[in-house]
């Protein structure tokens, strides 16, 4: 970045994300040497449908890799391994002989499989496959998307059953192409990405035949499930000869990049939405609080490490809403200025249940409320309530994780854009009654992929060496007294209650 005192060798990470593809080159200390990024088109064929052109994505990936090397002024010999991290659950089928996608990739946000998921739940409902997969039947996950493609692209099922079609999430697509594509490309996925398909059994780490039968998905299209950190193959093209040595879904990569290697360590990524993952070591914890059970990572032939995941649908997007829809601020950062102009929320609570309540409530009949309004309340109090909403929702997920796992959270490691909001970070620490810690490298997702790849090729000896790289950039410690916290939490919960049952009939 600003100085050239870092010297090779390096690890490259490719982040194939929802809005863009990026390549970041890291040095041995985990510092960023160069970055390149390119956005791709978001295709909306119908309301609530979201697709990506996988060919465009592969072109962009090649371009950002070349540019990152040029910007770092290094040649491919300086790169010891490549790691991949990716938008999770986005689903692609392609022809193994031509390398051409048979349809645009169906993006995780796409809800076209809603009805199909209800149908697949039969008389059991959305928890039909939860015991095996850790997931509820919901439109995010890849399995139902595969089924939709097989049902809706003409002649596809026959081609799939003949063995001409390959399925993959974006990690598989990038790795297959990197390692040669039609010319010997390896067809693999890692355990974290496989755990988001609803097709993998968490206990065996293999594709679950029963579920495949239930969803009518031919096993011939499936990639081989591998660990998150091992050499899958060597690259062709721009990166000729470099080992492709890691794959992790984006949130798991952030967990890895934050070096949450011990049981009870958790990270929270604050962006448009928020994803909180907690390492549960070798325990597959069934959630009764609406959390997801997922694979955290697996290094080579070591035992897999599991995780509990909770997400908050509306966090950064609530601040954007305050800016774009309400016009109360002109930039996202100004929410802190406005909120800091008052001492407290003035009695106002904002529950942004814009499309229902998610974990731990799962109430689709809920809608957003601002509660506790009096003539005293100003826009500054509302701004404060906006930030507190993110903090309380974090608290609710942490509480749910504690309830499910019995593990106490010792500290929360945070990353993502909203960590620049000092008041928010302090509020989270106050509401959790636990320290909140920001690491020095903000790009934890790419760093996680680089770490996993580096471990696989011996660039770093073990996870202790990675921990030694971790640097604390800031730490917020709780300042709120217990009485205030308890009283405020009660008020928040009352506000949450008032969101429920707003929509009369669920569709």
């Amino acid at each position, binding site marked *: *970045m*600003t*100085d050239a*005192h870092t010297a090779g060798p390096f690890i490259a990470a490719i982040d194939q994300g929802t809005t863009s593809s990026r390549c970041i080159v890291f040095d041995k*200390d985990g*510092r*960023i040497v160069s970055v390149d990024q390119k956005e791709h088109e978001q295709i909306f064929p119908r309301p609530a449908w979201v697709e990506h052109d996988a060919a465009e994505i592969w072109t962009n990936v090649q371009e950002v890799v070349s540019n990152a090397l040029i910007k770092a002024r290094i040649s491919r010999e300086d790169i010891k391994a490549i790691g991949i991290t990716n938008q999770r659950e986005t689903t692609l089928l392609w022809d193994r002989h031509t390398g051409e996608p048979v349809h645009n990739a169906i993006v995780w946000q796409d809800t076209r499989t809603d009805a199909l998921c209800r149908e697949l739940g039969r008389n059991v409902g959305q928890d039909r496959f939860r015991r095996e997969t850790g997931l509820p039947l919901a439109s995010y996950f890849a399995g139902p998307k595969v089924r939709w493609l097989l049902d809706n692209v003409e002649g596809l099922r026959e081609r799939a059953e003949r063995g001409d079609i390959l399925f993959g999430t974006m990690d598989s697509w990038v790795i297959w192409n990197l390692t040669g594509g039609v010319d010997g490309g390896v067809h693999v996925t890692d355990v974290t990405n496989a755990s988001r398909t609803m097709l993998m059994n968490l206990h065996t780490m293999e594709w679950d035949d029963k579920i495949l039968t239930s969803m009518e998905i031919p096993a011939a299209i499936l990639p081989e499930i591998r660990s998150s950190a091992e050499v899958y193959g060597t690259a062709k093209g721009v990166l000729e000869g470099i080992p492709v040595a890691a794959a992790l879904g984006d949130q798991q990569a952030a967990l890895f990049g934050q070096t949450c290697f011990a049981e009870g360590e958790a990270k929270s990524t604050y962006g448009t939405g928020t994803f909180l993952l907690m390492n549960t070591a070798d325990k597959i914890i069934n959630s009764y609080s609406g959390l997801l059970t997922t694979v955290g990572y697996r290094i080579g032939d070591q035992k897999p490490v599991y995780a509990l995941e909770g997400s908050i649908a509306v966090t950064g997007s609530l601040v954007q809403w305050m800016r774009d829809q309400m016009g109360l601020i002109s*930039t*996202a*950062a*100004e*929410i*802190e*200025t406005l909120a800091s102009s008052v001492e407290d929320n003035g009695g106002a609570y904002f529950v942004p249940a814009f499309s229902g309540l998610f974990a731990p409530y799962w109430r689709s009949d809920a809608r957003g409320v601002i509660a506790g309004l009096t003539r005293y309340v100003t826009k500054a109090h509302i701004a404060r309530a906006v930030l507190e909403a993110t903090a309380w929702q974090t608290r609710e997920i942490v509480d749910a994780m504690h309830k499910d796992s019995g593990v106490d959270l010792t500290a929360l490691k945070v990353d993502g*854009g909203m*960590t*620049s*909001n*000092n008041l928010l970070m302090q509020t989270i620490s106050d509401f959790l009654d636990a320290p909140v810690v920001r690491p*020095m*490298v*903000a790009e934890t997702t790419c760093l996680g992929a680089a770490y996993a790849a580096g471990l696989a090729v011996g660039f770093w000896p073990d996870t202790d060496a990675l921990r030694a790289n971790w*640097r*604390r*950039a*800031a*730490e*917020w410690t709780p300042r709120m007294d217990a009485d205030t916290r308890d009283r405020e939490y009660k008020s928040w919960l009352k506000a949450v209650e008032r969101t429920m049952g707003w929509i009369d009939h669920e569709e």
Partner: protein
Amino acid sequence: MARTIQSLERAAAMLRLLAGGERRLGLSDVAAALGLAKGTAHGILRTLQQEGFVEQDPTSGRYQLGAELLRLGNSYLDVHELRARALVWTDDLARSSGEAVYLGVLHQQGVLVVHHVFRPDDSRQVLEVGAMQPLHSTALGKVLSAYDPVAHAEATEAAREEFTPHTVTGLADFEGVLDLIRARGWASDVEETWEGVASVAAPIYDRRRMPVGAVGITGAVERVREDGELRSTLVAAVRDCARAVSRDLGAGRF
């Protein structure tokens, strides 16, 4: 109609007058143009000057509009926006320098720390966001005093406390220090505020080339200095960081 405050009306009239064709006016010009007694006009001008809305040219004694006016309206940069833009660069500065990084802006009579990155070792450190530093003795404060006229007025008019034997307190000496800072583009504080502590800082500009803040590193004097001189690599890293943040804010390459 509700009652109005006469002195505010007069102050507004003065600002309009100074914003008009003739940019610099003497006290008697202002008083005559508005039909005020010199003493009354002087009192209002001094108040406006204190608030930064008016500046007085030190040689001619004439008055002109102050930099604080530019902060109002569109050009105002939110400090939280500044922090958000600076985050990546200040992390990198802490990593490359091995020292704690601070970002400060002018607030009342001092420097308000709006962002702080810990020194990248495992020691216990406390987040100092919200803390105030003196203008006349710290590297951040001196950068602001050198480049921001309002900060300059604050630092030169207030009493400059002697924190250590190294603190520069005399006005002429202090102005000399600021001249050197403007010539070099960066400021230092070697045990002038705290014994055993040294800092280096450089200015951050926005897209209007207005100085909006300062960024710098702070550490033990033994690490920051080498053979009696500030380490040139540290100075370069601080200036690189300030330039990178300025570029992010839209200031052209410089």
